[in-house]
């Protein structure tokens, strides 16, 4: 089992922690700040209304519970890193939270007796900081209050990951002290939690503006920014237009930095909705009476989306770690996330200005890179052999009420067995005993939010032999006692749950046996990189391609990569190719057909048939170099400029550009380019074979022929995809990487290939339980007429009509349990057991009381 230390409080670091833990390694997570997400990071600055940080926390907690591999220290700072790769001694100082967020049950007793600062947060009990913790330790029934005494700790780890946080510039830097100017965060915050509504739109003097300008300074005077700023501003501008079509909305920026298919679609949509986009070289801001004039355009309010600044902390941590930096960012070895000191990695905003998608990609791709230094992972899954009581027809319901949740409520339930206890979650043994003793075979818990102790209560029932299908949770606390609910409501909800649980069926979570092999289709650079990561982990790695692409010179924006000579890049590529082809199964044919699905794909070529659990599509692209123009979109909706910018910079030529000429770290010394037209300095032509693959797999290509991946069908989701669903589950075992997806630099290809490789290994287990759990969809064949409504309803592709008997079947490995099929099915043949009509009808009868 490897041991890795992760420092930082960012989207990338939390992702990485979850991914290392899932891969079977021990993680020590040094969280800066008092609790998870306390530190204001990029997401919270730029997307204060978005809940994705909440969900990424959810992923972290879930992994923590499932694997037991993550240890978190709060308010932690590294003080020393000794030793070397595979054997680091890291010293750090930490101060425990005054309220241990993992133990806190949200009972709020401390609110009455201590000096508490309370921060409500979704998906949990909210955060608390207690100033007089020393006097309060005894108050907490859960033992969550601890004395925040600083402590020095030394740990031995095999690799270190540094991911200190983003910090935005203050907006004065761009606009001085002008009136009616607002930072983007304050602007977005106006609608936080309340919904985007005109009645909340106010500027500093309390007036409701009729025209709004958004200013994105990225790229001006070397101000740093990623695509994220653009995506967010364009989306917010569209929100404003949607809220009030009469509102005058302007966007001021130097360049349009939107990648990928859907991001460019965002730009087109903005123009379509009448949002005016002004490309300006520099900001010219004047006050004009009650208004502002921005580069000749009069607006009532100007909103500034600040770019990234280099925090002072970064210098310190770089010094302690003994790593080199460039412009404050960590120097990394070409095409890796490894810093100049072996075994120490940089991640997220510390590498370069990144957006959330890239942060997620990095947070996954780092695992195979760091594993070089880590001991063998321990992938043993925790399984318990429980003898379930399978009694579908003789229900005996026990109701367990938590006093903490039912404060002030008079509980009166129609059940033979009612058990009341203060703090159910703190008396696990007692609950198990009571369930056993009472002889009940169904349990209703009247307690708090399932996001808090739901899983634990279900587990207690399991220990007493009650299957999770026979357990219902009623959220008495958050839904009743905390929001001014009355006993009538509480009893109606409890009785409804009792009626429902009586008719619940035991659902065995189906498992799919998996072929332990991976097929990489195509000969793009990502194909080789992914194979390189996979060869040590997966017994069979197939590469299906006639030939491999030559390496291109869009190396990356990081100094080392950018300055590599052509020969060096080629040498790197040839070594990689040689290393991979020595061990991989290279099938030198084109793919003809791909059948099956996640866990068991069958890939046919002209003369071969191979089996694989996961498919990675890395067909690469054809590189055309013609002129000196940095092109934006060529015949489609995909941005090519990111590669063009690197080309222009590497070649040092004078170039022209249309929408964008620089990005990320290149902002510090952008390529020499002026607006104009010309033949593209570099163009990526997607491979012809993409069309056939897309057709076989039912995937979508953009106008140019690149695959949609991780963003479909949301319009800007490259940042988040299906982020808070496990990313791996979301793609049905088919990953797209590299130039097959969009034009990108080698650096970015390593992220995407690493993401695909790491996610794939996670899926290649002996058997894959359905991600839907007890919500897995089933078909009643007696009723199914084979009409296919459910097939269209399923976004995950988990349902299909069996040609043999014309009945809908379920691919359980793909089912995520949304129950859209059950809703769509007119005859009730498609069923998701926990929401079967019988249960819901019985429940409805009681809930309206």
């Amino acid at each position, binding site marked *: 089992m490897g041991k890795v230390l992760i420092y930082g409080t960012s989207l990338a670091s939390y992702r990485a922690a979850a991914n290392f833990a899932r891969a079977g390694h021990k993680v020590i997570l040094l969280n800066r700040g008092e609790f998870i997400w306390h530190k204001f990071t990029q997401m919270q600055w730029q997307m204060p*209304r*978005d*809940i994705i940080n*909440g969900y990424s926390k959810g992923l972290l907690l879930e992994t923590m519970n499932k694997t037991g591999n993550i240890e978190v220290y709060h308010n932690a700072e590294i003080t020393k890193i000794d030793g070397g790769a595979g054997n680091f001694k890291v010293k750090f100082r930490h101060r425990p939270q005054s309220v241990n967020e993992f133990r806190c049950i*949200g009972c709020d007793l401390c609110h009455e007796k201590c000096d508490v600062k309370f921060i*409500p*947060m*979704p*998906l*949990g*009990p*909210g955060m608390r900081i207690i100033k007089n913790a020393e006097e309060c330790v005894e108050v907490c029934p859960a033992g969550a209050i601890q004395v925040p005494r600083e402590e020095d700790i030394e740990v031995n780890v095999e690799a270190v990951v540094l991911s200190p946080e983003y910090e935005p510039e203050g907006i004065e830097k761009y606009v001085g002290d002008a009136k009616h100017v607002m930072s983007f965060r304050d602007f977005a915050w106006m609608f*936080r*939690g*309340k*919904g985007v509504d005109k009645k909340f739109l106010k500027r500093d003097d309390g007036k409701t503006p009729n025209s709004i300008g958004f200013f994105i300074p990225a790229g001006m005077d070397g101000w740093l920014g990623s695509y994220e700023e653009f995506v967010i501003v364009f989306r917010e501008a569209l929100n404003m237009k949607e809220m009030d079509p009469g509102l005058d909305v302007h966007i001021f920026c130097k360049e349009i930095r939107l990648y990928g298919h859907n991001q460019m679609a965002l730009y087109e949509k903005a123009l379509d909705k009448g949002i005016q986009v002004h490309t300006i070289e520099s900001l010219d801001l004047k006050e004009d009476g009650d208004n502002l004039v921005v580069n000749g355009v009069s607006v009532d309010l100007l909103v500034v989306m600040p770019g990234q600044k280099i925090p002072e902390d970064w210098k310190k941590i770089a010094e302690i770690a003994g790593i080199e930096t460039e412009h404050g960012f960590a120097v990394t070895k070409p095409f890796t996330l490894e810093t100049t000191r072996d075994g120490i990695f940089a991640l997220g905003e510390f590498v370069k200005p990144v957006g959330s998608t890239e942060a997620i990609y990095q947070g996954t791709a780092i695992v195979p890179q760091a594993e070089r230094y880590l001991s063998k992972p321990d992938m043993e899954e925790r399984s318990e052999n429980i003898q379930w009581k399978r009694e579908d027809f003789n229900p005996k319901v026990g109701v367990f009420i938590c006093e903490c949740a039912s404060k002030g409520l008079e509980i009166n339930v129609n059940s033979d067995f009612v058990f009341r206890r203060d703090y159910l979650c703190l008396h696990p043994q007692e609950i198990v005993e009571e369930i056993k003793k009472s002889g009940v075979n169904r349990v209703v818990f009247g307690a708090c*939010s*399932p*996001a808090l102790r739901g899983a634990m209560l279900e587990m207690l029932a399991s220990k007493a032999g009650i299957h999770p299908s026979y357990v219902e949770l009623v*959220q008495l*606390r*958050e*839904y*009743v006692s*905390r*929001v*001014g609910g*009355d006993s*009538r*409501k509480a009893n*109606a*909800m409890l009785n*409804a749950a009792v009626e429902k649980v009586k008719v619940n069926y035991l659902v065995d979570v189906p498992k799919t046996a998996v072929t332990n092999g991976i097929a990489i289709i195509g000969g793009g650079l990502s194909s080789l990189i992914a194979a390189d990561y996979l060869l040590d982990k997966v017994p069979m790695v197939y590469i299906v391609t006639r030939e491999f692409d030559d390496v291109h010179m869009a190396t990356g924006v990081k100094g080392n990569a950018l300055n590599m000579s052509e020969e060096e890049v080629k040498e790197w590529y040839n070594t990689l190719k040689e290393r991979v082809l020595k061990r991989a199964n290279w099938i030198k044919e084109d793919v003809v057909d791909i059948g099956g699905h996640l866990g068991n794909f069958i890939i046919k070529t002209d003369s071969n048939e191979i089996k694989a659990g996961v498919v990675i599509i890395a067909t690469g692209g054809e590189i055309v170099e013609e002129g000196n123009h940095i092109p934006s979109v060529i015949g489609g909706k995909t941005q090519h400029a990111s590669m063009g910018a690197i080309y222009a910079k590497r070649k040092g030529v004078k170039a022209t550009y249309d929408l964008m000429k620089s990005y990320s770290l290149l902002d510090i010394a952008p390529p020499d380019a002026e607006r104009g037209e010309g033949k593209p300095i570099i163009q990526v032509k997607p491979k012809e074979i993409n069309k056939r693959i897309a057709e076989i797999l039912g995937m979508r290509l953009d106008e140019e022929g690149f695959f949609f991946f991780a963003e479909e*069908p*949301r*319009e800007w989701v490259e940042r988040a995809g*299906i982020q*808070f669903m496990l990313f791996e589950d979301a793609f049905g075992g088919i990953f797209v990487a590299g130039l097959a997806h969009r034009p990108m630099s080698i650096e970015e290809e390593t992220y995407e290939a690493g993401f695909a490789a790491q996610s794939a290994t996670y899926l290649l287990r002996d058997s894959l339980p359905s991600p839907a759990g007890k919500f897995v969809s089933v078909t009643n064949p007696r009723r199914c007429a084979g009409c296919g409504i459910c097939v269209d*309803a399923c*976004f*995950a592709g988990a349902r299909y009509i069996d040609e043999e008997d014309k009945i809908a079947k379920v691919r359980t490995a793909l089912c*995520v*349990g*949304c*129950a*859209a099929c*059950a*809703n*769509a099915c007119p005859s009730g043949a498609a069923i*998701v057991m926990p*929401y079967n*009509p019988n249960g*819901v*009808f019985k*429940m*409805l*009868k009681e*809930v*309206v*009381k």
Partner: protein
Amino acid sequence: MKEKKFEPVIVGFFCNWCTSAAADLAGTSRLHYPPNIRPIRVMCSSTVDPVYMIRALQEGADATILGGCHPGDCHYITGNYKARRRIAIVKTVLKSLEFDDDRVLLEWISGSEGPKFARVMNEYTEYIRNKGPSDFKYLDSLGGEEVE
């Protein structure tokens, strides 16, 4: 005009990822809203068969709410679009038969919108309270003749 203040019962089907999370947040933040709401947690707004909503009205609810993620934010990618179609069907059927289709409400409330959740619940309860009891619950019964 009515001597006793009428207290409606409103059944809410809230999706697990957004609206239920918002309800959670409202609870954690102690934002009060009327106890008339009966929340039912479902996985996705598309989980809810329109017949469930009709049944709720028939069982005695004075109104029903379906709460889902904002368009484009669905955890299951397209669930809320499908839910919107179902709601359109239910409301059209009700309206066409001259039932009161305002008693079926579709709202998008994201997980971080605890305050919005409380606001919508307050406003809708007040709206239904002013409307008076639903007569849908007397469908297939002998009662309810004197209502309206």
